[in-house]
């Protein structure tokens, strides 16, 4: 299989010009537009790991701390994400409860686990079902930003519902943690280079073919 990298050809990500890579140069610039050129995203694995670890740390307070504090004449109520799910479920809005549960709890965790799986599999040089893994990556990237809906709702309510003592809503620390988790996972997905999945395939194939040649 012919790979751009193995042929020493590099494409500018900005202007799209294909050009020959300078061997032994650490940094390359596009001859036409001057943008930095990479064969692969630089430090993709370690960057993804860094962002993933930060997300893992912050997803704990995001779920344990209140996302919204509703103050009214009748006292202040603080709700966590899971508290909201339980409230919706017990107040007979099962569908909304399921939506909230999926969007705010399942998806962030699923994203984190998926990215972790992808990074580990790439690091191990696994050749297991690359197409499936590539599809998983595309899903993670596409779905990522939708978890921000929760944060948007909290932000909008906080901005709009400010009636002094009568009723006011404040965003809790959990909301900030949650938003950070969502942003960090989006960046983690961005910093992960899906071409690494195929590099492993490429390497293993080349290894096989050379060994075949040797045996022949």
């Amino acid at each position, binding site marked *: 299989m*012919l790979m751009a990298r193995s042929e020493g050809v590099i494409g500018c990500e900005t202007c799209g010009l294909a050009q020959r890579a300078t061997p032994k140069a*650490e940094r*390359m*610039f596009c001859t036409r537009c001057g943008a930095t050129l990479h064969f692969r995203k630089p430090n993709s694995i370690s960057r993804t790991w860094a962002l993933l670890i930060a997300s893992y740390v912050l997803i704990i307070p995001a779920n344990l701390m209140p996302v919204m504090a509703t103050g009214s004449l*009748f*006292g202040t109520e603080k709700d966590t994400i899971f508290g909201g799910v339980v409230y919706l479920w017990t107040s007979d809005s099962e569908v909304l409860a399921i939506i909230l549960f999926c969007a705010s709890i399942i998806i962030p965790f699923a994203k984190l686990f998926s990215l972790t799986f992808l990074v580990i599999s790439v690091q191990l040089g696994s050749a297991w079902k690359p197409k499936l893994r590539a599809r998983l990556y595309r899903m993670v990237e596409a779905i990522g930003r939708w978890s921000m809906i929760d944060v948007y709702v909290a932000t909008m309510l906080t901005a709009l519902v400010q009636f002094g003592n009568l009723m006011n809503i404040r965003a809790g620390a959990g909301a900030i943690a949650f938003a950070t988790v969502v942003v960090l996972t989006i960046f983690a997905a961005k910093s992960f280079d899906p071409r690494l999945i195929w590099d492993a395939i490429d390497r293993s194939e080349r290894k096989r073919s050379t060994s075949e040649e040797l045996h022949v």
Partner: protein
Amino acid sequence: MSDTSKGPELPDLPAAIGQASRRWAPQIIWIIPIVAIFVGLGLAYKAVVDHGPTITVAFKSGDGLIAGKTFVKYKEVNIGLVKTVILSEDHQQVIATIKLDKDAADFAREDTRFWIVRPRITASGVSGLSTLLDGPFIAADLGKSTSKIDSFVALDVPPILTSGNPGREFVLRAPTLGSHGIGTPVYFRRLNVGQVVAYELDKDGKNISIRVFVDAPYDQYVTNNARFWNASGIDVSINASGIQLQTESLVAVVAGGIAFETPQSAEEHTDRITNHPGKPDTTNSSPANSTLSERAKADAVFTLFPNRVIAMKQPDTRIQRFVLNFKQSVRGLSVGAPVEFRGVNVGEVVRIETAMDPQTYEVIQPVEVFLFPDRLKVRSMKTGGILPPPVNEVERIKGLIKKGFRAQMRTASYLTGQQYIAIDFFPDAPKYTFNPSLYPPELPVIPSALEDAEKTIANTLKNTDRLVKKLDTELVPELNQTLKNLNAVTASDSPLQTDMRDSLREIAKAASSMKTLTDMLDQQPQSLIFGKPAEAVKK
């Protein structure tokens, strides 16, 4: 698959600009997880540090308790939140698990009190109105104990006082609760200075202990000699000075109350004599071993008197017990009847019994009395000053009895037949030897004046009766006969009558002769000497 070396020929491509010198580039991206870890650790640390204790409180009813919604408040500040509300294992109580805030961790003390605040309307006011909108909350009152526990039993009703109020608590002992309840005001000179906070029946069921709380600074007026009395209601007393109406404030009349005051003359009664012929009464609860005018300690015990007059009586610190063996009816004498010495109240009747000698079948009425020897003051005849009471009481009693010191039952009111015991000196009384080994010692009695009078009257009546009978049987027939005879004598044809008439006639004749004689003598006085003239004789 395909040979890499034999790939399709690529067109000539421009070469990228290469830069050999690689600057040291630290991976800035790792700052993010480090910051995140620090933030996470910070939050975790805060959560651990802020983690207050979890306690359980047992309620009689779970009305209004909502897990995750009902707060625990102290001075209207949230200090905790109800986490779960479950039934106890025996289904008799509702157990709420409460997570206290970190800064309220020391509320988990043994004597901290919890209760549910609901809207309440009582005689003393309306409270808990905010819970109409908010729903009930659990109020807490911080205890003072140092031992920590984590399971509590909630109060059924809110306590009247919370520990924040300065002041002191005292215990009043009364035979009945009367009209007092929790919240009953305590008055000092008609000023509301405190209230009843609790009451309970003694274990033996004989008395009620009422706990009152007197607010600072008024608690300093509760001295060891303070008297508490029942100020509820209206006291109407009728005596020689007219009708007396005594009330506390109108609120006390309606809602009841307790008043206290320190008697003015308390300072005089600082001496204390222990040599009693009779044992001192154990119910006399005046605090010993402390100066009376000193401030009472918290939780000091006082007696609750039924009214002010009784409360303010001189404290009878010494009590002598005597028995009076009456051989007459004690009808009209009641327990509590006064014992008076020449009109001064010196004691009271405490027990009236009847006793029989099994051998002789002689029945006596032993009446036990308390005498308050301090009321019989010992006074110097020269200076008029009060001397300390004699030390040897037995000798004193012996001497008094020798001089004729006797008890007597007297009628206080002929209208109602009320009796009282009078003590006085009867020098003519029969001799009596005082026996100090008896308990209670006997004070000799002499029959009452009325008893004597009764006897005399009875005797008189008996004699009169006899006399009347005699008259009836002996005198009346004779009298009859006499009358009959008299009648016979005075009849118009009786010889006596005739004789009398004749006699009267003779007397009249004699009178006229007398007149003739006097006339003649008047005209011719010489005739007395010379005799009658001839012609006169002729005439």
